């Protein structure tokens, strides 16, 4: 069974029909994507617009919750793109999933404390091993230094 345009329009929930009556979709009327004057012709009912006389920001005519309700309903009937721009760049379903900001901890895991200090500790150990003879000489005196030199001189060069 294929629906005609008239039949399909009647299937649209009353809430959406009322909205589109008051705010006709894009080719018939255009809506600003950024906040404008409340009295402007292209004033977006989803955005907090500014009153030209008082310079005060009015709350959006449709709250964030009602915007979401309308969008989700329109999405199920394939007319979500006919709605004016949503406030705060609000996204739903796949679009929301794709544009999701990854968690900081997932991108850069902190790691355990041994993982974080491993490189530094390795370097410190390497440095200490290379300086081992000097440190021993410093603490044990010249006699030990001479012994080391003698051992080096008496070292067998053959096997």
């Amino acid at each position, binding site marked *: 069974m*294929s*629906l*005609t*345009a*008239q*039949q*399909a*329009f*009647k*299937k*649209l*929930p*009353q809430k*959406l*029909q009322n909205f*589109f*009556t*008051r*705010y*006709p*979709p894009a*080719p*018939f009327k255009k809506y600003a994507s950024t906040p404008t004057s409340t*009295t402007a012709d292209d004033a977006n009912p989803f955005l907090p617009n500014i009153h030209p*006389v008082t310079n005060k920001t009015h709350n959006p005519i449709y709250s964030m919750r009602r915007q979401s309700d309308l969008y989700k*309903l329109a999405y*199920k*009937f*394939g*007319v979500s793109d*006919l709605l004016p721009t949503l406030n705060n760049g609000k996204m739903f379903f796949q679009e929301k999933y794709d544009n999701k900001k990854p968690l900081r901890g997932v991108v850069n895991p902190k790691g355990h404390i041994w993982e974080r200090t491993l490189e530094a500790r390795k370097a410190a150990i390497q440095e200490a091993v290379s300086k081992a003879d000097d440190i021993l000489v410093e603490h044990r005196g010249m006699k030990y230094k001479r012994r080391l030199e003698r051992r080096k001189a008496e070292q067998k060069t053959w096997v």
Partner: protein
Amino acid sequence: MSRLLKESKRYGANMKRLHPLVKAHFDNINRKGQIPAVRNDLPAVREEKQFKSLEDWKYTVGDKVMIVKGALKGTVTSIIRTQKETNGFMLEDGPTKEVVIPPNYWLQSESSHVVEYPKVVTSEYFKLVGTIKDETSGESRQIAANDVVFRGKYWDEDYKKMMPYRCIKNKEEYIIPWPRPDKPEDDKFCTEEAVALERTYEPVSIFESDIPSDLNLRDPLAKRKSRFERKQQLLTKKDLKLLQSPAMPYSDTKKAFFRERAEIRSKQITEMSAEVADFIGKRVADHLNKIKDPYMWQYIKKVSGDRKKR
């Protein structure tokens, strides 16, 4: 302090509220402080158990009784007093006790601090005595009743109230009449009974009063109006002014706001053009015709605009 508050004993010790054991303790202290003459011979009775009506008491002051217990057994005497607190009786020639009373309580005739004082007794201590007349011989004799019961009521002219007939239990044909009360002596300022009872006004109709409606018995120079008059007061100009809400003029800002709101409302689109409906309809039809999922169709049917409302 209001009467009710005073009776409730909100501020101060209320003996009624105390625990029975605590109350007994305080009663004991009180008893020790009393002089022996004032002490009760019988234990005090709780208020709810105290006799109130004639039917409770059964015997009253002036009744002839016969003592059935103790050394005075068989004596015929009469009741001189009743004691409410103990449900007890004092008899004229009944048992007495020697009590010592301080000189400031002495009567004029007394010369000793030791006085014979009547003891309070319960109703088990005596039996009620009545007189019956033998119709054949015409002799009258006294009988003592073990107990009495009450059957029916009559108007007693001396007591000026309805009194129960006092019959001997199980022999109800014998009625022991109530004793005659002492006649009240009239003061010299008293109104005579005949004058007081004389009827001077008789209403003609219960619907229409003979008393004129505008009759005012109050002093016309009285400062304050009576509370009945105050209730019927009419609204004054001051009252009306207070009751009516003030009609405040709207400010220029408010007027501009109204104008703007009206303008916005006039601009609002209230009906959808066929063009727009067709445009949206096509989009919706394209989408719905692709749907194969039966559960999705179930949902669409539930929320659709052409759904029949229950």
